[in-house]
C-alpha cells in the first residue's frame, strides 16, 4: 500500500502550527491516493509531540529522538528521516516549508533520489500520482510539477493548507534512536530565541507592516507595535526600513525577505514596490494606509485609507482595542 510520510515539525515536545497543516493535508491526500499516513517527528521531544498527531487523524507515527540525531545536524536529521522513508516504502514525503525544511528538503531529495518541490501551495492526486503547484519568480507565476521519481517530496507553504484538527484519534508512536549517522556532519551548539517569544511572521494570522512612511525608527515602534499588539499580529517591514537599520532582517517581507500569507496584512507607509508585493500578495485581505493615493500598494489592497500614518494609526489602534475588548 502506498504510504505518505508526514514529517511534523516540533519544538520541545510541541507540534508547530504548520505540522497540523502538513498532517491534515497528508490525511486528505491519503484518501485520494489510497495510501496510509505515517507521521514522523524528530529531535528532543519527538515522542511527546508525535502523540498529538491523533488530533489531525494520524494514527501511526515514528519519533526519532536521541542516538545520532542528538547532534541536531541537518546531516543526521536527513539520514534518519530518509531511513524511515525507505523502511516504510514511502511514496510521498511531506513537510512544512519552514527553516526546518530548508535544511532538509534538498538532502532528502539526494538521499531518496527524487527532486523535491519546495513551498507548494496545492497538491492534487490523479491516477495514483501527485502533482504540485508552486509559486515561482516570487509569485509572479505559478508552476505545476509532476513527480517522476519513486518518491514525491514536497514542502508545503505555511498558512495555506487547512488544518483539520479535533479528530480525536489516538496515535501509536514508535520511538527510535537512530544508530547510523552520516560520516561527516556539523553540530548545533545552541539555539537562542530572539524577539522575546513574539509571533513569528510566517506563522502569523495577522501582520502589521511598516515602511519608510513611518519616517523614523521611533515612530515605527510607537505606531506599528501597539497596533500589532492590539491585533495579536506579527510586525513586518519593507526592505527600505530594514536596510536603514530601523528593524531586524528577520522582519523583512518581500522577494529577498520572508514570504507571508496571513489572513490580514496591514501595509502602513509602504509604497508597494514589486519586490515587496512578491512577499505578501497572497495574503487573504490586504489593507493599505498611505498618504499618496497613487501609491501602487492600493492596486493590490482590498481596503485602503488615504492618510497620514501619524493621524490614522493611533485612532485605528484605539478602535481595534475597543472592538476586541483589549
Amino acid at each position: 500500500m502506498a504510504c505518505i510520510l508526514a514529517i511534523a515539525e516540533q519544538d520541545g515536545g510541541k507540534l508547530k502550527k504548520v505540522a497540523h497543516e502538513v498532517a491534515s493535508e497528508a490525511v486528505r491526500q491519503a484518501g485520494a491516493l489510497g495510501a496510509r499516513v505515517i507521521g514522523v517527528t524528530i529531535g528532543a521531544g519527538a515522542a511527546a509531540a508525535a502523540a498529538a498527531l491523533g488530533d489531525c487523524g494520524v494514527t501511526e507515527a515514528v519519533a526519532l529522538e536521541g542516538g545520532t540525531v542528538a547532534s541536531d545536524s541537518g546531516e543526521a536529521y536527513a539520514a534518519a528521516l530518509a531511513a524511515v522513508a525507505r523502511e516504510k516504502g514511502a511514496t510521498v514525503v511531506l513537510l512544512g516549508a519552514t527553516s526546518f525544511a530548508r535544511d532538509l528538503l534538498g538532502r532528502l531529495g539526494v538521499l531518496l533520489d527524487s527532486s523535491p518541490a519546495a513551498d507548494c501551495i496545492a497538491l492534487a492526486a490523479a491516477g495514483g500520482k501527485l502533482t504540485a503547484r508552486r509559486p515561482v519568480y516570487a509569485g509572479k507565476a505559478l508552476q505545476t510539477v509532476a513527480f517522476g521519481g519513486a518518491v514525491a517530496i514536497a514542502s508545503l507553504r505555511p498558512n495555506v493548507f487547512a488544518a483539520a484538527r479535533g479528530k480525536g484519534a489516538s496515535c501509536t508512536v514508535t520511538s527510535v534512536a537512530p544508530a547510523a549517522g552520516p560520516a561527516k556532519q556539523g553540530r548545533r551548539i545552541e539555539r537562542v530565541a530572539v524577539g522575546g517569544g513574539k509571533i513569528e511572521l510566517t506563522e502569523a494570522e495577522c501582520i502589521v507592516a511598516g515602511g519608510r512612511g513611518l519616517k523614523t525608527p521611533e515612530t515605527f515602534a510607537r505606531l506599528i507595535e501597539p497596533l500589532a499588539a492590539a491585533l495579536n499580529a506579527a510586525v513586518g517591514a519593507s526592505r527600505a526600513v530594514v536596510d536603514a537599520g530601523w528593524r531586524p532582517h528577520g522582519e523583512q517581507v518581500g522577494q529577498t525577505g520572508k514570504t507571508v500569507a496571513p489572513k490580514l496584512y496591514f501595509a502602513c507607509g509602504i509604497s508597494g514596490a514589486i519586490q515587496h508585493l512578491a512577499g505578501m500578495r497572497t495574503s487573504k485581505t490586504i489593507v493599505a494606509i498611505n498618504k499618496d493615493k497613487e501609491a501602487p500598494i492600493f492596486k493590490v489592497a482590498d481596503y485602503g485609507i488615504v492618510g497620514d500614518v501619524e493621524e490614522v494609526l493611533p485612532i485605528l489602534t484605539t478602535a481595534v482595542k475597543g472592538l476586541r475588548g483589549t
Partner: protein
Amino acid sequence: MKVTVCIKRVPSTTARIRVGGDGRSIDETGVEFVLNPYDEFAVEEALRQAEKAPGSVVTVVTFGPEAAGKELRGCLAMGAHEALHVTADAAPRDALAMAKVLAAAIATTSPDLVLFGRQAIDGDQGQVGLMVATLLGMPALPDVVKLAIDGGTARAEREIEGAIERHELPLPCVLSCAKGLNEPRLPNMKGIMAAKKKVIATAAPAAAATTTTVLSLELPAERAAGKIVGEGAAAVPVLLQLLRDEAHAL
C-alpha cells in the same frame, strides 16, 4: 584556502514575467538578467574569507547559458580569481539534476569551502546548495548570517523563525548565504579592467536524469481591484466594519 562559489543568472526582481510559447517556461524577450541577489552575499563572503587567509583562491562557478558569462565576469570584477562556466544546453533540468551537474564541476575545484546563495529567485527552490553538499558528502548549513573560519572549522550562525542557531561544521563544508551576512561590494574600475583579462574556463555538463517535470506555467489571477474606504482617521470606523462584516478578517 580554496573557496568555490556557485552563482546563477536570473531575471531581475523588476522583470515582467510572461509565459513562453511552450506553456512551461518564461518568455525571455526583453527580460533583464542579473546575478541572483543572494549570490552577491556568497561572492562577497568568499572574498572576505579569502582576504583573511593570504594565498586563497576564489572560484566562481555557474551552470547556465552562454549569456551567463556576463555574471561570471561581474564576479571576477568584484575580485574572484577564477571562473568556471558549465555551459547549459536547452534541456530542462530539475533541481536535483542541476545539483548533480554542479557537484561534478565543484569537485574539480577541490574546495575547502563551498558557498551558495540562499535561493535562486527564479525557481525559488532553495535546495541546490544542500543537494550538492549531500552529493559530495560534505556537511552543510543553509541561511547563514554570520561566519568565522577558525582553522579547520566553520562557525556559522543561522537565522530561523524566532531564533538564532550557532553551528560548527568541519571543513570542507557547504554554506548557503542569506541577507544580513554582509554588504556586497560593487566592482571598482581596477577590478573591471582586471576581469576583462581573465580567462573563463568552460566545461560540458555531466549527465544527470531529471525526475520532476514542469507540466505548466501560468500567471496568477490578478487581485480584484480594491476600494479606498476614505481619507484620514475618519475612515477608521468604516474600515473596521468592512474588515469584520465583509472580509470576516477580525
